[in-house]
């Protein structure tokens, strides 16, 4: 871009002062003028709050006791490590993230393979399959709570006809099953994310590759296992890490479906932090829990990147 010389047209020179000012800016300066508004907004509402949040995690601030934050060092984190509620929530978050990822990747991959063959109306099918991903979580949550209702839920009734008995108390009142109920709904709304990425990855693989492996006598499964899967590795890597972060971070679906109950059986870490802030107004402790989540995610990401060896092979 810098190679092209600056030639200002007559019309431009006569234009308003703002345009004249912007025309003076070239190259780097022009880029920075365009970038500064977004950078400052993100700094104000994300970067500054991030540091403020970290500072809060080292302070005692309970709105019910008073508006002033008192610095207490790592006290909150000591409490946190000994808190059985946190331990329980961490266990649930691990299950939620692990089971969530495995089920979503499996269904997402199957759906992407099914949707990858080109035909006339395949785009309509692709859009329909993506729909749950764009649905408001509130609607998704209450819709499924209704359909899995112990008495009136159509899914509860239909699966009982094929011999799966959810039990008289239903899935939401059962401490052993409620988390898996939420995980099922999470699968419904989130697997299209993997389908989207994997499908794009498949479309980037040249079709001729299949022709040549077919000539070599490879079965479809062998082609998938030894040709497609390695080629899809980068896509799977990126989408897995993004979805893992979302599953660890977001309390939304659990908040809406069970609020952590019955008991604490579906309590996940971000929901615990949210409740400490929103219901107990214990801002210091809630921040400490969130910072612990952030540390956990960073650790997970580093181990994951190392173990996959991403970036080394290329």
């Amino acid at each position: 871009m810098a190679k092209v010389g600056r030639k200002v047209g007559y019309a431009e020179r006569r234009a308003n002062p703002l345009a004249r000012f912007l025309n003076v800016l070239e190259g780097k300066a022009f880029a920075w003028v365009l970038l500064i508004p977004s950078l400052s907004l993100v700094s104000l509402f994300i970067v500054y709050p991030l540091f403020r949040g970290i500072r809060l995690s080292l302070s005692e601030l309970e709105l019910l006791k008073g508006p002033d934050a008192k610095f207490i060092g790592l006290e909150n984190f000591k409490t946190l490590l000994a808190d059985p509620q946190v331990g329980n929530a961490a266990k649930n978050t691990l299950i939620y993230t692990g089971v969530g990822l495995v089920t979503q990747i499996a269904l997402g991959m199957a759906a992407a393979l099914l949707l990858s063959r080109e035909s006339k109306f395949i785009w309509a099918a692709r859009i329909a399959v993506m729909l749950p991903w764009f649905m408001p979580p509130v609607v998704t949550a209450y819709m499924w709570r209704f359909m899995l209702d112990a008495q009136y839920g159509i899914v509860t009734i239909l699966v009982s006809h094929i011999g799966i008995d959810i039990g008289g108390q239903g899935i939401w009142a059962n401490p052993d099953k409620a988390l898996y109920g939420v995980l099922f709904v999470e699968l419904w709304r989130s697997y299209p994310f993997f389908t989207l990425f994997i499908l794009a990855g498949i479309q980037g693989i040249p079709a001729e590759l299949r022709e040549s492996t077919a000539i070599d006598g490879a079965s479809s499964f062998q082609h998938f296992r030894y040709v497609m899967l390695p080629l899809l590795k980068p896509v799977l890597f990126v989408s897995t890490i993004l979805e893992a972060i979302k599953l660890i971070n977001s309390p939304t679906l659990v908040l809406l479906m069970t609020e952590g109950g019955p008991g604490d059986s579906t309590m996940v870490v971000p929901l615990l932090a949210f409740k400490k802030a929103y219901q107990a107004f214990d801002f210091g402790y809630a921040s400490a829990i969130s910072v612990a989540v952030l540390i956990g995610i960073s650790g997970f990401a580093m181990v994951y990147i190392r173990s996959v060896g991403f970036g080394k092979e290329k």
Partner: protein
Amino acid sequence: MAVTGKSRFALSTISINVGVALLIGFATLPLIWTAYTSIRPELEIIKHPTGLMFGNLGFDAYREVWRYTDFPHLLGNSVVVSLMTMVMSLTLGTFAGYALSRANFGGKQGILLFYMLVRVIPGVLLLIPIYILMQKLNLLDTRFGLALAYTTFTLPAAIWLMKGFFDALPVDLENAARIDGCSRMGAMWRIVLPLVRPGMAATGTLVAIEAWNDVLFALMITSTNEARTWPVGMKLLIGEFQLPWAQLTATAMMSVIPVLIAFGLAGRKMVAGLTAGGLKE
């Protein structure tokens, strides 16, 4: 995938079609059932939960929600907040996306990475400081405050998407315009923006849907009907009154229809943009 039919383990066309049909059913049947429930009489829903009777269907539940609750007002709030978010996020995202796509300067990779990383930060960690910040700025419980928060959180995605759409346009077009005497600003305004309009529509729709759907920040930042958006309203309605099923599903349908329309109009381009942006890194 042209020759899948020939090999031994290949799936036949029929089984692929059945699989695709199952996927479509899995995605859409819950919504169809919700829509059907919303027009059934409450008594029917309780007496025959699985009944398919098309006798006395009607929009009574919609009328009741519309007349006797604040829901219409909350939907209005959501429309305003979503539109504000869309305009702000799209404007800033287009500027930044253009700069990151076209200009070469030190720190460009750093900025791109920065916009990736900010998405990793747990929303719950930011909630409290943002609440305190909004209080100081007198933006608590205002629609503009909510829109500012949503703009910030949708910006990284908007920037990445717009950068992708700009990357897809040849630079030669602008160079030609500039040789003909167009300024840098003029080249962007007159040549590039009209070409990238479909991408802007897709990005804007995505951003608006995010603002429309959010419940977490709205729950924290709003406290009265002044700025409260529909997801909060729906959560409170259900919590307080144990809504009858017909009204609950009617409320759900009313709030999901705008999403369906937007998705129907821009879905194809949105899906294309999302994968293109995600795959490049």
